Each structure stands twice: as C-alpha cells, then as structure tokens.
C-alpha cells in the first residue's frame, strides 16, 4: 500500500498497525460469539438475551472504530490515533466485559 505521495515506509508501520486493528477486531468477535454461546446454552433468559444484545452492540462499536481508524491509516503520513478514539476503543472492551459479567451471572 503506497500513499498518495508515493513514499513507502520500509518498516510497513501503517500496514502492521492496520493488521493489529484487524486482529483486535477478530478477538472482539470471538468474545462476542462466546457471549452468544453462553446465552443460548442452558436456556436463554430475558436478562441474558439483553446482555448478549448489548455485547453485540459493543462489538459493533468496536468494528466501527476499527474501520474508521483503518481508513485514517491510509493517509500519507498516517493520521495519529486520537485519545478520544483510544478511549472509545477501550470503552467498547470495557462494556463487553461488563455485559459479559451480566451474561455469566
């Protein structure tokens, strides 16, 4: 992937960062799928289904953040990660953990 200026970073830093976002999205997907499995296992309850739906909402939020970040990385030079973006990504993970606790209980 080369930027508009044609300069290519020999360390492939933007590509590595892009793949790191992809890996993290994948990990998030696995966690969300496990949430669904836990909910469906042993008869879904109302609280379980609501918590599971919120888990998927957090997953969707992370997906959107990753997508936006990957697009920002395509620039030359790539735009830096903003603190707000980082906090939002961590908040999605946090929300996933909180709703996971609700699913498990």
């Amino acid at each position: 992937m080369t930027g508009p200026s044609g300069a290519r970073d020999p360390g492939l830093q933007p590509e590595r960062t892009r793949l790191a976002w992809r890996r993290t999205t994948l990990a998030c997907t696995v966690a969300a799928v496990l949430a669904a499995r836990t909910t469906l296992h042993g008869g879904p309850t109302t609280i379980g289904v609501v918590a599971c739906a919120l888990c998927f909402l957090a997953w969707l939020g992370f997906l959107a953040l990753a997508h936006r970040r990957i697009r920002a990385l395509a620039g030359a030079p790539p735009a830096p990660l903003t603190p707000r973006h980082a906090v939002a990504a961590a908040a999605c993970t946090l929300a996933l953990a909180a709703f996971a606790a609700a699913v498990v209980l």
Partner: protein
Amino acid sequence: MIEFVRNLRLWFVPQAIREEGRTPDYRFSLANERTFLAWLRTALALIGGGFAVDQFLPDLRWAWRVGLALALLAAGVLCSLRAVNHWVRCERAMRRGEDLPVSRFPALLSLAVAVVAVAMVVVVLVGWEG
C-alpha cells in the same frame, strides 16, 4: 493513583496532549498504538477466558465457576483501562522526549493469571464438583 487521576484528564481532553512537546515520528506513535491494541487483545482474551470457564467447566460448583469467570472478567476490565492509560502516558513521554513510563502492571497481571490458572488446575483435578 494521583498520577492516574491526572492522566484521566488526558483521556477526555484530547487536545491537552497536543499542547505538550513536539509531535514524535509517526512510526513511534504507530508502534505505541500497536502496543495499546495488543493490551486490548489481552483484555479481550481474558474476557473470552471468563466465558470459557463458565461454559466449559459445567460440573464445577456454581460459586467456583462464577467466581473464576468474574475474576477473569475483572482482569479484562483492568487490562483495558490500563491499556488506554499506558498509551496516554507513553504518548506524552514521547512528546516531552522523556523515558517511556515503567509499570508493574505486567508483573501483577501475570501473577493474577498464574493464580487463576493454578486455582483452575486444583479445582478440576481435586474435583470439587457440586
């Protein structure tokens, strides 16, 4: 702890970080970002581990099963909070040209994971099933 509260300001006032020092080489910022994402993955793996304990040890007594699962989920929460806090600290250190911050969190996390792992082995081997 006081340092943590001071960092909280940087979480929610993103402009504040740009007021200090000089913008580092974007490659350093991207490396910091990847470290942040690696910590988020660790947090997600701990969350996944919490689900796994709940799902794949069904014979365990309820209190043990939910206790271990909640311990792993709590570790995931701490890990994601720490991820963003450490990212902010590293970013600021790079801007100011200071040494990168040191942290005892990795040691504490590995100890916690080791304790949970030993507890799981003991619980499964000894068979304190309900």
